[in-house]
């Protein structure tokens, strides 16, 4: 390869890297109303960087001190003859909370129920695959649930308000759906349904009387009452309920038991004859999903319903699956208040980035001092490796936590070790008197299996971590898969760069701090 060609290739690569780095790091305004947020500022950050969205739920009949004080003020200002009950006689103080004695005569039993519900909620939120989350029982009577907001740094800094509200809505939706209390009921909004029986005789069902309808007033859809389609507990009709996405479609799948298949056929026959032709799935008084086009009876082992997005499908599936498996919250809880965004007093993402830049500068300095020109080239390739990691974090929506940052450091170490092995081999061969080009060729050949074995084992291990692990472990596994593949590809790229940079050298026995040992025999 000639000097010109070598320079052209080097400059071209440098340009590509510069452009990739520019879009990865620099954010800028586009026109007056739009803004381009860099790849780095669009990477999702874990709870240790941007905090949690959280809510505290209280069992019905349990109120906070501020609510209690409000009742006291109301009672005091209304006077004793107002007919209001004195809060002091109605409520019993329990830590920072007040318990309605009529609703909960046994506070220890109430505490036991709250603890049991917290365990169920913990299991439900555990299935969300959050990098971290918290389900904590406060003072025995309330449950505080925290889920990560996964803000990007742009959203965290309020430079992307739309994205920020989308993330908060997602967290709020998860908190309100997964905390649904009560049993599963299948419902309709029709008060009566006219249908024909097997003999073709017209029959009218009064839905108000048909089902067990203690929630008829509460379980509403757009303000209309709904009615249960079955007097029995419908949970045994379902073997499992799963949610996720198939391609770009979010799908919720209900799998029926043998008994359930028959019952669902009966229920959907009724729904198909109704005017709304909609089957609602309620947990307690919360409508989780509606099957709005039930035009014919369902006679199959499962049905799949399309939902707005995969996250919604997963939230609903987790809740319904938990309920059909008997994990029903034993208490009714008050409405989930709008989840508060919690900015974190923890690690600053910007400072972590500064730390990473400093560490990378240290690596560059080390490589350049040790391997001179070759070290500088390897540093450039290591920079390319870092860019690959940054782009992968954003494109694969990997949440960055401290553990992920550390795993990225381990992966850069893997790349550096691979390079160090081959450099040592080149050095060894150069000392035997070969030309640099011959040494490079033989060195890469000699260490081929070493490097391949190393990367092969690691890529399979990373895939196992990504697929079996959940939360942070899965995130570390996923970035490791990308990192190990990138390390292997870029390792071979160093071979190419050896060729590009060493070809124009006039002295074939001297390059990048390496030189042939001239023996006396020579």
């Amino acid at each position, binding site marked *: 390869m000639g000097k010109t060609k070598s320079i052209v290739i080097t400059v071209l690569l440098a340009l590509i890297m510069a452009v990739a780095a520019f879009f990865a790091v620099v954010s800028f305004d586009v026109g007056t109303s739009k803004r381009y947020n860099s790849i780095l500022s669009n990477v999702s950050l874990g709870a240790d960087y941007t905090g949690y969205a959280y809510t505290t739920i209280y069992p019905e009949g349990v109120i906070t001190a501020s609510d209690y004080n409000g009742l006291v003020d109301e009672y005091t200002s209304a006077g004793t003859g107002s007919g209001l009950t004195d809060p002091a006689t109605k409520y019993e103080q329990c830590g920072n909370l007040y318990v309605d004695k009529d609703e909960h005569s046994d506070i220890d039993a109430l505490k036991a129920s709250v603890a049991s519900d917290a365990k169920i909620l913990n299991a439900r939120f555990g299935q969300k695959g959050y990098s971290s989350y918290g389900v904590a029982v*406060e003072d025995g009577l309330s449950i505080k649930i925290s889920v990560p907001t996964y803000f990007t740094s742009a959203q965290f800094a309020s430079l992307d308000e739309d994205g920020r509200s989308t993330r908060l809505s997602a967290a709020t939706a998860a908190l309100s759906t997964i905390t649904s209390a009560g049993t599963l009921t299948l419902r309709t909004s029709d008060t009566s349904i006219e249908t024909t029986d097997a003999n073709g005789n017209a029959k009218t069902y009064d839905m108000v009387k048909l089902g067990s309808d203690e929630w008829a007033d509460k379980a509403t859809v757009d303000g209309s009452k709904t009615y249960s389609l079955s007097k029995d507990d419908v949970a045994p009709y379902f073997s499992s309920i799963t949610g996720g996405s198939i391609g770009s479609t979010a799908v919720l799948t209900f799998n029926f038991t043998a008994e359930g298949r028959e019952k669902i056929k009966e229920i959907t026959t009724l729904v198909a004859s109704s005017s709304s032709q909609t089957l609602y799935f309620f947990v307690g008084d919360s409508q989780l999903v509606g099957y709005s086009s039930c035009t014919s009876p369902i006679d199959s082992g499962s049905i799949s319903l399309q939902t707005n997005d995969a996250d919604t499908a997963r939230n609903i599936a987790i809740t319904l699956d938990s309920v059909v498996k008997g994990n029903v919250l034993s208490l009714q809880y008050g409405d989930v208040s709008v989840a508060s965004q919690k900015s974190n007093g923890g690690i600053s993402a910007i400072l972590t980035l*500064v730390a990473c830049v*400093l560490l990378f500068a240290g690596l560059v300095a080390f490589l350049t001092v040790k391997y001179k020109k070759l070290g500088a080239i390897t540093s450039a390739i290591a920079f390319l490796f870092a860019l690959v990691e940054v782009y992968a974090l954003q494109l694969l929506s990997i949440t960055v936590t401290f*553990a992920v940052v*550390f*795993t990225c450091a381990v992966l850069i170490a893997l790349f550096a070790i691979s390079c160090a092995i081959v450099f040592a081999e080149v050095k060894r061969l150069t000392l035997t008197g070969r030309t640099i080009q011959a040494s490079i060729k033989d060195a890469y050949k000699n260490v081929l299996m070493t490097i391949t*074995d190393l990367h092969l*084992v690691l890529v399979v291990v990373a895939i196992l971590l990504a697929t079996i692990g959940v939360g942070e472990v899965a995130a570390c596994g996923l970035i490791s898969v990308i990192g190990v593949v990138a390390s292997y590809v870029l390792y071979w790229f160093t071979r190419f760069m050896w060729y590009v940079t060493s070809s124009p050298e006039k002295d074939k026995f001297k390059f990048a701090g390496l030189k042939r040992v001239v023996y006396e025999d020579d």
Partner: protein
Amino acid sequence: MTNLKVCKKLHVFIFISVIFIAIGMAIGTVCHFVANGFFNYGGEFASYKSITVSYYYSEHNENTNVEEICKYAVAGVNPVEVSYATNELSEEIVYKFSATTDNAKLQAIVDEINSNFTGLESGAILHEGVVNEGGAKNIVYAAIALASAAAFQFLYYIIRYKLRAAFSALLACVHNLGVYAALLAVTRIPVGTEAVAIGAAVVLITMILSGLFFDRTRKNFKNEKFVKTDRVEVVETSASEIRIITVTALVALAIAAVVLGAFAAISAMYIGAYAPAIVALLGVIACFYGSVFFTPAVHSAIDVCCEKVKSSSKSSTPKKQKATAKEENEVKENDEVKE
């Protein structure tokens, strides 16, 4: 560094490892019964006490620096984490304390904050017992993933190297994870889900370094230069040949953990913020000890044992004995011909 002889100090390293892991287990077990658990659970695993300060600014208190008042009141009782929250109506500061913090001290803080906030529509509340359910499910899946990874590495090494190398590699993973867990138990660093993920990173580092070591060992065993060299010496040489790379990589990772931890501490001077960096550093220390000292020493012993078993099984099999005798005769004849 390359002259360091580790294989002959096998007993020392086994002793150190066993003792250290045993100490870790003992401390963990004692703490499980008398303190807050086998590890010092932090993050989403920890039960804790908290003080929640709720407030909102109005025209009456816009000049009040709530954070300063709280900081002043909390000084002297180290919180493990501080977080700031905003919602539609008010703002919150939540101070988390370890579950063993004295209630009287915390109540004094609450009283002090409340006395400063009189008439400012603000208030502090002490939650004496917050029982965190934690994400135990994450640990179970991580354990399954790591076990599968180690099993895969074992099988791969059986095919690519030998059973003895596969066994040593498996032992290296188990040992390094054991030392890592013992370090966490002994140092009582708050352990959250990041500790599980860093445990996975420990396994990755161990696999990278043991992969290098076993590859070099295999190459050296095949190298004519070492045909007549004692097997232990070959393993020793292999370990010393890759020691510079191993130590450099681990020192670099340790520096990375320290720098990340230092910057985390700059951003928030609470243990909850920089504990993950310390956990990472402990992981690197476990890998350093395991990869530099323990694995080569143990592998040399396993290799010698396997060779002994192999030679004794050869000598105990009559057919093999005959074959060996025949081979020896052939070698003698060849030597005579050469002479």
